[in-house]
């Protein structure tokens, strides 16, 4: 861990998490401001504060390069805020900020990798400095002091703030042995800058001064300030800052001092609020809603929320009322989920234990039912903890669309639908890359190249890419749709033929099969390889990544109307209710969600259609009959449909009957994915979703009904 200040390893997770959140917020703010074509004061303050926090925490971690870059950004916004220069080209300013933000985000991604050295940002810093100079030269002369103000931290600049309450002082003690007290004090001062005007603090010099740390440990850190919104709000900020052991009010200013007895109670709260977890295993953390009502995590910015105030709740969670969100290491949640999975298996082992066969155990059955109910609830809760709204991933796409708009010179609106839909955290992580590819694809290949083309086609000149998500009973469906020209089947076929990807005569291909060609490795219709797509890896990678998280991709397209990429992902990756059925020696589990009923057919229910396909007549409707043993090449016990069991199943609006030998029972099973070795043989395509271990240790294969009935 050579990149970090010694003793800071434990903070890496928190640092990465916090900084990433801040950078995401910055992105959102910037995109919104760019759309508006400028900054208002609130936004400038917001950006200023984000860069300030990033600077402070990066310096604390010993990441000099990031601190410097953040510092130069901070300076830039300081100038914009204080000197109100005339900004001639917002485009250039935004370009500058975006690229700096990207560098910072990129660096965070590389932090955990020790083999990559810290990136040198001096070129970028220089560019920003030059831009600053330009801005300055645009300002009327007589800004002698400007040179100075840049280097002087902002919190000394606020003395002219209106102050209702007199000067107060507070002495703060940090937790024992926490180290870096001087920088922590500096961070605290920064955090307080919004709530009060800092008059002075002891020790005075904090940055790069390890003596100050000594002094703070010995004597505490004394801040003299004039509150803006009253003493209480200042104290709240102090309480919500991490790693503070205790604090005392030396001089309450105009306010009553009778708060001392409340202090201890407050500090107890505070201890609850700080996250004691210093695991370095995983930087991924998610916010856990305390209750169903607060499912929307605080740091999630809603697209309709035009003021970027989400920042406040994220970096200072406790500053507004009671804390209802905590961060938890994802590994712990994974362990919890595994454990619940094991409990479900063990429960089945106990309740359907062969030793109990034939016994009449009324009380046992009652208790077993109760246990079942509780494990069901436990499962639901664990699952809901891991659910996060998809809006986080969607929001990241706005940035990609923005960049591509600039580079491709296309006017495109990005719209969201159903962004509050929740999916499992592990799915969210796996969604970013494929979604990015699909959005790029839609922007690059989907939307027409010029506005004129669109107008000629009778469409509005500005193209639209829509990201939508909704959940059905067992799946989340995510679609990336564009209103572009649609897929040109002939072109696709010609290209596939040229690349030797066709396996039968061109005329035999249906539209669906042609769209399928797009997802083959090494296929790309774009003549020119662009920065965004066209390397012939895009859709192939999308398909692979989606399959990795247990989902499937399909393409729908209409010439002249647009193209939809549709991703289907199972809602719960881990535990499903299933019916076990036997076919010869093999046992399969069919997910309950896809079963409509199971019947024994008799009389003349079995009919044949004109092409000789077997159909089952059921209440006036005909369903195709599929013999599972035929599909899978197994030796069945019964080959006559009148002897076996017929499962009426449904997937994606299509129904069919699947012939099996016998029903064995119903069980909740924990889905175990197939190993990579088996996945190479397209087991998913052949209707096998994964396998599961039953109570007796035997393995069954979980069927994916949609792939069985739709592919045949």
């Amino acid at each position, binding site marked *: 861990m050579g990149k970090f200040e010694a003793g800071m390893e434990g903070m890496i997770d928190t640092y990465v998490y916090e900084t990433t959140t801040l950078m995401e917020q910055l992105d959102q703010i910037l995109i919104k401001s760019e759309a508006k074509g400028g900054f208002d004061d609130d936004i400038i303050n917001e950006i200023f504060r984000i860069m300030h926090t990033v600077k402070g925490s990066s310096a604390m971690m010993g990441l000099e390069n990031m601190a410097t870059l953040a510092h130069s950004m901070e300076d830039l916004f300081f100038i914009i805020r204080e000197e109100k220069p005339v900004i001639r080209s917002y485009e250039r300013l935004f370009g500058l900020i975006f690229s700096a933000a990207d560098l910072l985000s990129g660096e965070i991604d590389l932090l955990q990798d020790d083999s990559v050295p810290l990136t040198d940002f001096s070129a970028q810093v220089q560019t920003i400095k030059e831009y600053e100079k330009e801005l300055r030269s645009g300002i009327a002369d007589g800004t002698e002091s400007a040179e100075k103000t840049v280097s002087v931290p902002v919190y000394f600049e606020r003395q002219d703030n209106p102050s209702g309450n007199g000067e107060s002082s507070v002495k703060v003690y940090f937790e024992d042995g926490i180290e870096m007290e001087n920088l922590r004090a500096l961070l605290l001062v920064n955090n307080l800058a919004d709530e009060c005007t800092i008059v002075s603090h002891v020790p005075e010099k904090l940055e790069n001064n390890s003596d100050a740390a000594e002094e703070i440990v010995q004597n505490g850190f004394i801040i003299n300030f004039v509150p803006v919104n009253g003493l209480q709000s200042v104290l709240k900020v102090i309480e919500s800052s991490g790693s503070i052991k205790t604090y005392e009010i030396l001089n309450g200013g105009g306010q009553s001092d009778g708060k001392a007895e409340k202090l201890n109670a407050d500090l107890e709260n505070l201890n609850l609020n700080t996250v004691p977890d210093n695991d370095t295993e995983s930087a991924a953390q998610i916010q856990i809603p305390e209750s169903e009502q607060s499912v929307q995590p605080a740091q999630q910015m809603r697209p309709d929320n035009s003021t970027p105030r989400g920042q406040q709740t994220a970096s200072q969670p406790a500053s507004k009322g009671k804390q209802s969100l905590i961060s938890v290491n994802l590994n712990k949640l994974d362990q919890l989920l595994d454990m619940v999975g094991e409990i479900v298996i063990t429960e089945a082992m106990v309740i359907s234990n062969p030793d109990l066969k034939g016994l009449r155990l009324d009380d046992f059955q009652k208790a077993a039912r109760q246990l079942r109910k509780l494990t069901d609830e436990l499962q639901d809760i664990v699952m809901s903890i891991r659910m996060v709204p998809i809006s986080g991933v969607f929001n990241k796409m706005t940035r990609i669309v923005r960049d591509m708009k600039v580079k491709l010179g296309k006017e495109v609106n990005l719209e969201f639908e159903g962004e509050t839909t929740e999916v499992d955290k592990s799915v969210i992580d796996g969604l970013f890359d494929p979604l990015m590819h699909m959005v790029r694809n839609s922007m690059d290949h989907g939307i027409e190249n010029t506005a004129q083309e669109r107008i000629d086609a009778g469409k509005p000149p500005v193209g639209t890419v829509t990201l939508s998500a909704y959940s059905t009973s067992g799946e989340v469906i995510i679609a990336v749709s564009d209103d572009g020209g649609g897929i040109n089947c002939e072109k696709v076929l010609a290209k596939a033929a040229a690349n030797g990807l066709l396996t039968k005569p061109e005329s035999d291909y249906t539209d669906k099969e042609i769209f399928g060609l797009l997802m083959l490795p090494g296929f790309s219709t774009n003549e020119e390889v662009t920065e965004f797509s066209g390397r012939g890896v895009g859709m192939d990678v999308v398909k692979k990544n989606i399959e990795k998280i247990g989902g499937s991709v399909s393409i729908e397209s209409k010439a002249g109307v647009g193209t939809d990429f549709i991703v289907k992902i199972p809602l719960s990756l881990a535990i499903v209710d299933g019916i076990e059925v036997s076919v010869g020696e093999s046992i399969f589990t069919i997910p309950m969600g896809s079963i409509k009923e199971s019947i024994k057919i008799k009389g003349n229910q079995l009919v044949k259609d004109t092409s000789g396909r077997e159909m089952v007549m059921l209440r006036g409707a005909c369903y195709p009959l599929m013999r599972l043993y035929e599909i899978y090449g197994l030796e069945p016990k019964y080959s006559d449909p009148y002897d076996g069991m017929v499962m009426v199943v449904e997937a994606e609006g299509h129904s069919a009957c699947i012939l099996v030998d016998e029903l064995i029972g119903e069980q909740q099973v924990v889905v175990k994915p197939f190993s990579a070795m*088996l996945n190479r043989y397209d087991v998913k395509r052949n209707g096998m979703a994964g396998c599961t271990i039953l109570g007796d240790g035997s393995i069954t294969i979980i069927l994916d009904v949609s792939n069985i009935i739709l592919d045949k």
Partner: protein
Amino acid sequence: MEEVLIDQVTDTFAEDGGEILLFFVNEVLYGIDIRFITEIIGIQPITIVPLVPSYIKGVINIRGKVVPVISARRKFGLPEIDYDEKTCIIVVEVNETPVGIIVDMVRAVQSVMPGDICSSPGAGTVNPSDQYVSTIIESDGEIKLLLDIHKLVLE
């Protein structure tokens, strides 16, 4: 990357020697570098996975993990025989994925000296398993065929 790994393994054999697990398939003596082996277990109930190549026999449950097993006989193009108490599953880990290999009988672990290595299989040998053999080892008057585990499992 994969090739590098394979090269490294054979290289270390040529320079430092190593240890291999010896086993029989169709009365021919084969070896696997023990560094790939996690355990050896007796034959277990195997759950058939339909529509995969016939050398993949199915999956087994090893302490809660679902592990695919392949038949060395099938892989070498030999007829299957009935499993008996000598039949073993050698569990190897390749690219962090565990895979079981069904063999007729396991014999012993043996040290291999650099001097024991004869050559790579050349022309003239007619064994169907040749394409999976990386090195031929001769010691104690016996020929042992060292298998390239990556080729065996991944191809």
